[in-house]
């Protein structure tokens, strides 16, 4: 899986491409830990390139979200492909995460809140 990250203002955007599973989760986990180390992290995870997600990957995102919220930040998701959207809806994680169709509006959602 490929990870690409950028910063827009203070918001960290991570774009993932490929299979997001137990094998690739550690890379995402360490990225999430890095960006939320020193500050309340405002994180956008763009899942546009992810066509498979498993429960380990979901718990990585949940852990990142919980850590960010504890510090007053958040982790928000955008551009979910259908198979990923289905898993997230079936596990009702759509109630836990703020999910947006596009990346730009996800980034903007932080300044609105």
């Amino acid at each position, binding site marked *: 899986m490929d990870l690409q990250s950028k910063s827009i203002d203070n918001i960290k955007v991570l774009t993932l491409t490929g299979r997001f599973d137990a094998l690739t989760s550690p890379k995402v986990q360490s990225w999430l830990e890095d960006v939320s180390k020193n500050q309340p992290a405002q994180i956008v995870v763009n899942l546009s390139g992810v066509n498979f997600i498993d*429960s380990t990957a979901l718990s990585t995102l949940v*852990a990142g979200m*919980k850590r960010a919220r504890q510090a007053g930040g958040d982790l928000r998701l955008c551009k979910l492909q259908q198979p990923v959207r289905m898993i997230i*809806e*079936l596990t*009702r*994680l759509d109630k836990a995460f703020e999910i947006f169709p596009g990346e730009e509006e996800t980034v903007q959602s932080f300044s609105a809140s």
Partner: protein
Amino acid sequence: MLRQILTRNHNQIKAIAEAWFSSGANYFGVLENETPLFEFRTRSTGDIELTQQLLRAPIDSNVRVEVRLPGLVISGAQTRLSAEANLIAQVIRLSTNLEGLTAELIDTQDQLLAIYNLTQGTRHYIDIEKLLKQLAKETAELVRADSAFVVLEMPGQSYFVEHYPEKMLDDRYLDLAYRSARQTGHPYLSSEELRTKALVNFLLVPIRILDEPSAALGFTKKTGDFMSPDMKLAQALAEHSGAQIENVLLYKKNLDQMKLQTELELAHQVQLNLLPRKPPHINGLDLWAASRPALQVGGDFFDFQQKKGHPLSFAVGDISGKGLPAALLMSMTRTAIRSKANDTPSPSPGDIVSEVNEELYDDFTDVNMFATVFVGQYNHRHLIYANAGHSPVIYRPVRGEARLLEADGTALGVLPTSFSQDHELTFQPGDLLVVGTDGLNETQNEKQEMFGYDRLLDLVNTVSDFPAQEIGQALYQAVTSFGAGEPQFDDQTLMVIKGI
């Protein structure tokens, strides 16, 4: 030096001097330039007689022997003295050679001792970094370099380097030397030009680890060249270091495997001991459940419980994670659900889910995991359930199509408060509830396609007339043949509840 050699041969020189005295000489000396190194005189020496004859013979360009003979001229005296001077020269030469050889012998012995120390010192290391430090230290001394370093590639990472006593070679040149040596398989010796740039002379010998060129031993010298014996020694040390590194890596691999194996066995034990061996007999229900653990155990569980005065309660859960932590959290979750279900009056499934979530939320947060659970109760044709993020749950009424019962709340440990509500089904003969875990629908075939929900739903429709056990086995069978040849990545758990 010369004086020392002569002193060691004092007796022989004295014997030569005495032979001259018995031939009438009154003086015998060995002189370096004009300074006497040894002098022997007869007692009567004191006033040198004018008639005495002075004989001289060179030992080498600076050293000579001198004999003074008063009075008579002995024929052949000069020839005799020259022969003796040659003899002394020969003794000096041999002694010098002997000293050289002795020094070399001591050196070699020192090296042998150091190599012995190296072997002894490194054979007990099981920590790779400590071993590399030790190798750098010992080999630096052996090659008499100013610094030594060991390079080692680790799988999936770039290489790392241990220096002793400190880093003396810039990373750029080290990298250049390492890549070159790795590619050619031959030692890399710094060129004149590189030496000037890097400010040190350096030598790097590639090492093969488990038949791959993935390490190297390097040395730096601020002054002086690496000569042929240094190169040979460095190569021998590189081979030795390779063997030591291999040993440690293999040992570590075995240890890791053993740890993993122990963890797997423990997790299997936890899981197997907690799963009910037989479902209870309940009037109006046909029950069956099973769990197939993956090689790397996940955290699936199922449970039935019937306590007097309470409805039948059941649960299926899946901890997001693998190995021992998942197995332990699974047992905690299962125990918490069991204990809540035993409360009087009986809490509803929604209450159980909510209370267990509150109780375990911090534990789940600490280990970065969560658990999807489906909790149900059955009492006289009424089935009440709460679903915290769990899937697949398939309900097929006796006259109708199979459909997924989707969760309304998030999994335990995701949010501090649970959203899961109670839902009620009237459960008549022929009605069917199949609760699985995602290890079933996420089973993949060789094309990396997933078994998916649609196949599960179709299959439930097809086999719904069978008894619970046969339905369960048919589902397992279908999933197994779909994923034939591919390893099972996740636990697969199935609970079948059928109204009769």
